[in-house]
């Protein structure tokens, strides 16, 4: 395999690779630090067909009846051949369990997206301050939502990295304040309308 300069694409000389400090690319003179690992030159794993042939009295793969089973799924226990075996952080899974684990988010290492409901709640709580002043009537929507989200998603998994729940708390408090302000506004309007003297036509 070739190790190329990320800037100019030319192949790098050996003295630049795995050097202890920055070296200069001879072609483009950019400062580079290149770390190459054994995986670069390692032979890729090849499954030989002879090791998969089913012998007499041997267990067969659940998905390929003509292939020899080499292991079993740690989730469902199905026998698997070398083609179907998926090693995920030391856990052997079959394609079915892998797919269901990814879609149902049961396997942590397969998750590649998580919604941060606490930030959403906080933003809904702060929204009336960020939005233009005339749009303050949106508090009818943002206040209840800012309170609802912490109640609904308090125990839901938030993030893979450490994260406290202060955003939920602040969002809920701000949402409550918005709700109180809206109720106060409605009461004031109704009170003002009732207090207005009625002009009767003569």
């Amino acid at each position, binding site marked *: *395999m*070739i*190790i*190329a*300069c*990320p*800037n*100019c*694409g*030319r*192949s790098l000389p*050996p003295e630049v*690779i*795995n050097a202890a400090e*920055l070296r200069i690319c001879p072609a483009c003179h*950019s*400062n*580079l*630090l*290149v*770390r*190459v*690992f*054994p*995986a*670069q*030159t*390692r032979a*890729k794993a090849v499954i030989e067909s002879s090791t998969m042939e089913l012998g007499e009295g041997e267990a067969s793969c659940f998905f390929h009846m003509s292939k020899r089973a080499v292991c079993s799924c740690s989730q469902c226990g199905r026998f698997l051949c070398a083609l179907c075996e998926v090693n995920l*952080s*030391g856990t052997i899974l079959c394609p079915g369990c892998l797919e269901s684990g990814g879609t149902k988010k049961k396997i942590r*290492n397969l*998750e*590649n*997206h*998580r*919604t*941060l409901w606490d*930030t*959403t709640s906080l*933003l*809904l709580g702060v929204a009336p*301050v*960020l*939005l*233009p*002043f*005339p*749009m303050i009537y*949106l508090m009818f*929507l943002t206040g209840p939502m800012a309170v609802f989200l912490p109640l609904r998603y308090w125990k839901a998994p938030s*993030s*893979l*990295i*450490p994260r406290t729940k202060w955003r939920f708390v602040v969002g809920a408090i701000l949402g409550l304040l918005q709700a109180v302000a809206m109720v106060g506004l409605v009461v004031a309007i109704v009170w003002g309308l009732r207090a207005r003297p009625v002009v009767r036509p003569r």
Partner: protein
Amino acid sequence: MMARPDFPYRKLPGVRHGILTSASLWLGTDHILHVKNTRFAEEYRRYYLNDIEAIYLEKKARFLPPPAVVITLILGLIALLVLSIIKHPLAVSIGWIGLLIVSLFAAWLCIFRSCICTIQTALGTDRLGCLHRVDGAYAALDQITNRVLETQGPAQPYEQETQAEIPQRVEPVTQPRSKEQTFGWLVLPFVLMSSSIVMKLPVPIPDRSFGFALAAMSAAVVLAVLTLIAGRGGARFRALQAVQLAMILISGVEVYALVLINTYSQAVLIPRNNGAEVLSMFISAAHIASVWLGGANVAVAFVAAALLLRTQGRVNTA
């Protein structure tokens, strides 16, 4: 930060903070976790230690300045433009402040050494956006190297003889920025510039424009929140989300800035008998800018919603 039993990751040096996104790198038991935070969601990418083939660190100034600096400069230049139009004496002071900001930015570029880090696996290369400072990248690289070598075994001398069999030039590792990525930062100045241009046109402004702006922005906010929460992947969709959020924030900043200008006009300019004209001009500008921002918000929100439906359709079909 030490790894806890219930939390198998240890934070690596190097974090990138932005207004709309941030990124960090975490070292797990058998992989590196790249976390990209888009404020409303987190996207994860795992690089298994056994699969990492090479890591490149290129000491290089990043092409684009941080978004916060760009927004500050744009707003500062617009303020300078407006003050120059009205021939206000404060324009000179603002000019000096602008010069100071530009000088500080240049000094910032010179003092802090920045770099570009790229990781290579058998399937391709990815840029590690969080490792953008040389010092942090060095520290992270040392930790990653040690763990990768523990996993893959001792390093072998690099084999040079295989290079003779393959062409001496390959495609560059660094990929150019896609149109979708630059789109987000092109829309914002465009909308602001358009508002400034329209402000100068001799067009009568009907009072109902403000009502239209409010309705449009309300619809845009609802659609923006929906699309932001939906959190579908894809560079184009993420760019649209970023644009929506930026435009909503800019709308808020615009109104508060106008309130401040209004107060200043009332307190300082009107007593000097030249404030009424300035005040009416700013109110007209507020109306037009709100209409433009509201309209652009609605357009972007509808595009995002269409994109979301299209993505869902593909998923359902698949």
